[in-house]
């Protein structure tokens, strides 16, 4: 089933991606094609199959919850686009809700 433009806009909203009008149309077509191909999976009867939840061969184990050294703050902030008072600075959060 081909995606609609509204579908693409909804996905882009969930993914926090701003798309141009031209991108919306291109992705609508391409995603429809890809999803069509992926739909091939529905032909398999998997009612008796457990989903694969881990690739790791060994049993996973919990480690001790011990505090250790963290990355130095100047290192952590060194790549930040904007820093104020040793913190990440961001634009206002509340004046807009999607």
């Amino acid at each position, binding site marked *: 089933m081909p995606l609609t433009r509204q579908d693409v806009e909804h996905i882009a909203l969930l993914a926090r*991606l701003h798309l141009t009008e031209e991108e919306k149309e291109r992705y609508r077509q*391409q*995603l429809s094609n890809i999803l069509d*191909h992926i739909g091939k999976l529905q032909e398999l009867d998997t009612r008796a199959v457990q989903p*694969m939840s881990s*690739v790791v061969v060994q049993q996973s184990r919990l480690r001790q919850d011990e505090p250790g050294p963290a990355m130095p703050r100047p290192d952590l902030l060194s*790549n930040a*686009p904007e820093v104020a008072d040793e913190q990440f600075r961001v634009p206002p959060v509340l004046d807009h809700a999607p």
Partner: protein
Amino acid sequence: MSELHALTVAQILKGLRSGTYSSKELTRAYLDRIEKHNPRLNAFLHIAAESALKAAAAADRKLARARKSKAKTPPLLGLPIAIKDVLTVAGLPATAGSRILESFVPTYNATSVQRLLDAGVVILGKTNTDEFAMGSSTENSAYGVVRNPWDEERVPGGSSGGSAAAVAAGLAPVALGTDTGGSVRQPAALCGLTGLKTTYGRVSRYGLIAFGSSLDTVGVLARTAQDAALILNVMAGYDPRDATTQESAAPKIKLNGKQGLKGLKVGVPSEYFIQGLQAEVEKAVRAAVAQLEKLGAQVRQVSLPHTAYALPVYYIIAPAEASANLARFDGVRYGLRVPEANLFDMFTHSRGQGFGPEVKRRIMIGTYALSAGYYDAYYGQAQKVRTLIRRDFEEAFRQVDLVAAPITPGSAFRIGAHTENPLEMYLEDVFTLPANLAGVPGLALPAGFDSQGLPLSLQLLGPHFSEGRLLQVGHAYQQVTDWHTATPIGFRHA
């Protein structure tokens, strides 16, 4: 000293220890070649000339001291190496081939890189990659396509195309790559190299910029199986910073050039010889299998019945994981920020401008597959079929020791051949994806040339943690074949 660039890692280490040449001479020779050829090939995104020469000089001092005192040196002391730009090296940029990380300079080393540095390597630079390792041609790099040294109008494969082109052209003796759906094996195949995809859990991913966390592995692009083993031995093993790494110690792999393959059972899966597989590729793979037989292996047919479903399973699971992993690129802590009046617009515009078309495409596929109402039909079903694919391998490895198959449907394709149709590009990966879904290791081995002079390749797949077996078989094969010693015409001389 004119042919330094053609040496294998094993030869280089010997020469360094005996003092035939210094690490500085060697490093200088590679940097000169990079300077000469990289403007065309675009294999390196960042060349670390200054720090490399400094590290080489330090290695030379240690080598000289060790020669006097007969002391042991770290296993890779003075060896130049290239690192794919999705792995962090402290102080060098790590772009992952993306605009969104154009200005990112990590302050810590990936564990794989740290272990190589502890073993004495000299890092030449960071190699080009499809953006966030998403691609099969390196055409998805935000920093331009990489050219295949065997034919510069063709792609080197991807996503580790920069690493593959660098080693094939003799700009580095060996390079790290990563393999999430074939990104080490496929470029190794298209560039005539030996490429090792490690078992999931063999090498730590700490410091690897995550793409698909249940699929990502760190691997090696080298000239020989022996060289891949030397690098793997240093990187492998448990890392408290990556909970998926195997806790038991990784055995050191020692290869034996005199050992034949008597008693080895090799399975050939019929599902890998399908319509669309080029005749020349099939011929080369069958000839390579016959060669293994000549070395003493028993060859039989096996079945991996769910192979055809690997592509749709992968293109749900990998994008789903990518959509979650790439949520961290929000313009807050690192990377590109597009200034906007409020937080939401800052997020969407930073991501909209920072990510390239393929990355956005996959984020959207993944977001859709995980969204309310579609989760069970897509992601849930994919995880179930993934179980079936893994069982296929478990069943096959009850009958045989390893599986031999093609890696790609054809040899290196022309730049631009698949860029209009993303699905066509995805089909490049049909033979490599199953190993990632099952978590098993794989090896690409040079196995001939097609009528156009382009490299052809054999893929070996083994059970979990069977790298030693795969590399031993590769080593035995490379004792009786010389495909891996061929170098592209334009890159034979210093």
